[in-house]
């Protein structure tokens, strides 16, 4: 049975709240074949660059391409690892330093698959998905973020 064949929209406006993350965990209590969850949260860092501090990141995306790529990554991950389910959300718009901009949630009967899968998914998102970030400094100037 293929449960993951339609293209989902991973984007949410603004920061991802701890309530949203908590609810996502709670929703899995009925799925009792799951024995392990793994969660990755990306948080906006208040980097200091040439004496100026990042106060927020404004995210934009080429949404159609980003969602299509994310779908491909999802399919690859399901084929590589024995996962029960996978949920991915990324912010668009302004996310302040300290707030969450990426939420990846994978679940499996066994822990080892989760550990490997989450690393794979997060690295693929960073490298392959058309999301752009404008680092906004406290003085309202900005620079464009590049993933390392």
């Amino acid at each position, binding site marked *: 049975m293929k449960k993951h064949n339609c293209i989902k929209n991973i984007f949410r406006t603004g920061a991802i709240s701890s309530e949203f993350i908590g609810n996502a965990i709670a929703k899995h209590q009925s799925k009792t074949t799951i024995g392990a969850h793994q969660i990755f949260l*990306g948080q906006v860092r208040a980097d200091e660059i040439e004496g100026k501090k990042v106060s927020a*990141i404004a*995210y934009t*995306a*080429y949404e*159609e*391409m*980003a969602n*299509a*790529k994310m779908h491909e990554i999802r399919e690859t991950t399901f084929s590589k690892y024995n996962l029960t389910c996978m949920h991915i959300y*990324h912010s668009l718009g302004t996310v302040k330093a300290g707030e969450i*901009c*990426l939420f990846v949630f994978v679940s499996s009967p066994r822990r080892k698959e989760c550990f490997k899968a989450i690393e794979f998914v*997060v690295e693929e*998102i*960073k*490298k*392959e*998905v*058309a*999301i*752009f*970030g*404008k680092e906004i400094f406290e003085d309202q100037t900005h620079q*464009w*973020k*590049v*993933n390392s």
Partner: protein
Amino acid sequence: MLSEITQCPEETYVFTQTKVSDLLEELFEKYPLLKEKNFQVAQNCKIINAESIIKETEIALLPPFAGG
């Protein structure tokens, strides 16, 4: 990032049998500052290279990714 240079989000060009490199040449002439930027080109949501032929479709210039 790139639209800060072009001051517009999109433009329409009419070509026949044009390669990506030809389009870039045209864009660089119009927007010399683009030359200093690092970006990839996508056609119909797929990354393509300089030798690819442009079809009647949407071409996107993608600055470096910064998700997560």
